[in-house]
């Protein structure tokens, strides 16, 4: 187990470095010179040189990258241009809200996806065929923003069952019921695609596991169908974890649109607002934090899978 953990961590390091390089150089694509923006058009050449030196922009790009990375590792992601606050504070608040939404959506996706998969594999033929076509329809690259808008039009504007946006009521800011009430529509929207994919992939795993020799053995020993199914599900749990883990990671990406549609104050909404204000440090930090979360979730899932499934531990890390 220790060896596996070590290998897996070693594999994460280059990926993290790669992600940080991509994020850093993406911002270098920004046209125009940041110093001109800072000092204005009428600055003297002396001021320009001074400012360039002060911000470290006279150094070569690789050096700038190392400096930026050093600061980022210490939790310093620079200052927001539009909000005169440090980016770390802004991003931390937004990220915790994103995590709330993602966790809720992930819960829906995993539970609903697993239940759907079991119904498809073990259910009556007609029901399972109908469900599997619905699921394969939902698991495609559906536009979350379209789905969100349809949900708002139907359940918020027309039926008025749920609020159309926001995270909390102004009147009762600390209330959990109000938070849950606000979570339903964005949660379902974000969960739609992952639910479909989890259901599709997990039902394939269940079907495969049902073909294993031990299942035949269990049946031959006269165990009830329910007990046999329990064994099949138990044997497939590790792959449910892998499938779900990957989808939870993708949730972090797709949630950007959900947050914008439902005005959820998370990373996506923050990035969206920063785009129109050209607040590049915030955009950079938002993308970096989401990407890091994705890498960390993948790491956690792989380790959890190794804990659950001795076969994974034995075969070692496969890149």
């Amino acid at each position, binding site marked *: 187990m220790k060896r596996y953990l070590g290998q897996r961590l070693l594999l994460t390091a*280059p990926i993290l470095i790669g*992600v940080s390089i991509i994020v850093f150089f993406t911002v*270098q694509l*920004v046209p125009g010179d940041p110093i001109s923006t800072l000092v204005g058009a009428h600055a003297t050449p002396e001021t320009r040189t001074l400012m360039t030196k002060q911000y470290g922009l006279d150094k070569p790009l690789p050096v700038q990258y190392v400096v930026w990375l050093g600061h980022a590792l210490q939790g310093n992601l620079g200052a927001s241009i539009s909000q005169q606050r440090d980016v770390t504070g802004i991003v931390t608040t937004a990220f915790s809200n994103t995590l709330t939404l993602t966790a809720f959506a992930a819960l829906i996706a995993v539970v609903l996806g697993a239940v759907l998969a079991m119904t498809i594999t073990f259910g009556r033929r007609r029901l399972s065929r109908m469900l599997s076509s619905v699921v394969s329809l939902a698991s495609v690259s559906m536009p979350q923003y379209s789905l969100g808008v349809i949900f708002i039009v139907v359940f918020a504007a027309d039926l008025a069952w749920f609020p159309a946006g926001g995270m909390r009521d102004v009147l009762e800011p600390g209330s959990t019921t109000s938070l849950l009430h606000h979570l339903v529509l964005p949660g379902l929207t974000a969960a739609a695609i992952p639910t479909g994919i989890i259901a599709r992939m997990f039902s394939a795993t269940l079907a495969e596991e049902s073909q294993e020799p031990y299942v035949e053995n269990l049946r031959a020993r006269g165990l009830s169908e329910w007990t046999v199914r329990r064994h099949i599900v138990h044997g497939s749990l590790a792959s449910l974890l892998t499938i779900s883990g990957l989808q939870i990671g993708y949730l972090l990406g*797709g949630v*950007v*649109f959900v947050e914008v549609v439902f005005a959820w104050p998370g990373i996506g909404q923050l990035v*969206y607002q920063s785009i129109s204000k050209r607040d590049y440090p915030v955009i950079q930090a938002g*993308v970096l934090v989401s990407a890091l979360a994705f890498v960390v979730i993948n790491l956690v899932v792989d380790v959890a899978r190794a804990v659950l499934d001795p076969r994974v531990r034995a075969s070692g890390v496969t890149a």
Partner: protein
Amino acid sequence: MTSAAVLTTRFRARRRPTWALSTQVLLALVVLLLGTVFLGSVIAPYGATDGDPANRLLGFGSAGHLLGTDGQGRDILSRLILGTRLSLLTGIIPVLIAGTVGSAVGLCAGLASRLVNTLIMRTLDVFYSFPSILLAIGVAAALGPSIKNAIIALSIVLIPPVARIVEAEVVALRSAAFMKVAECSGASRFLIAVRHVVPNIRAPLVVYCTTLIGLSIVDAAGLSFLGLGASPPTAEWGLMLNDARNYFFRAPAVALAPALAILLVALLFNALGDRLRVELDVRQRGATP
């Protein structure tokens, strides 16, 4: 039996098996969409920016405006038809670019030495280590909001998955007997790639790219929705959707039209990809959903 009948049977036998009806219907729908791209300005009853302030936010089925009007009194049906061009092109162009570049990268990686292969594939893994739409947002935001930049951003984002698919196909082909024969008879790597590898990976590539078009349309409209693509008053579905958010409660129909358009077109390309997979008998290697 007349000789003509014999001729037709022989002709039939030589022809490729015809595609299933559902595939043909889907293909016809795509052709129809492409027709809208070229003939949009002829079909559309109004111009994209012809506003009529007296008739704002009309509902579905109003006289003269089948799908109603938006917040500035512009005809939604016309804007939807005229918007097809941008929405479809921003979906297809990135896939064409990424398909070409990604295939080249995948071919190189698949046919190169182990070291080069590892270098290329591990670099691609980094792109895989976070959600592609985040990278697209980052790149598009950095380049500045415009349709051209949204296309560039999406092209960059779609290269790694294409390269990965092609590499997996090429690696699987490497052990085939005809590849060994070609190698032994002294064919150059380039010749092997062009004459033996490319024809064999064409089918999976076409299938995968068709599904990618759906994704690309969704992401492109998404970028416009976020303000990173087309800018007002252009008729573009993502932009129309964002604009409609102001009228959720007064005129929900305004939002439904573009939302459904994007949804249905994405479904269309995904369904077509699925059908082509069946028709061309492709098993996907190394693909992630």
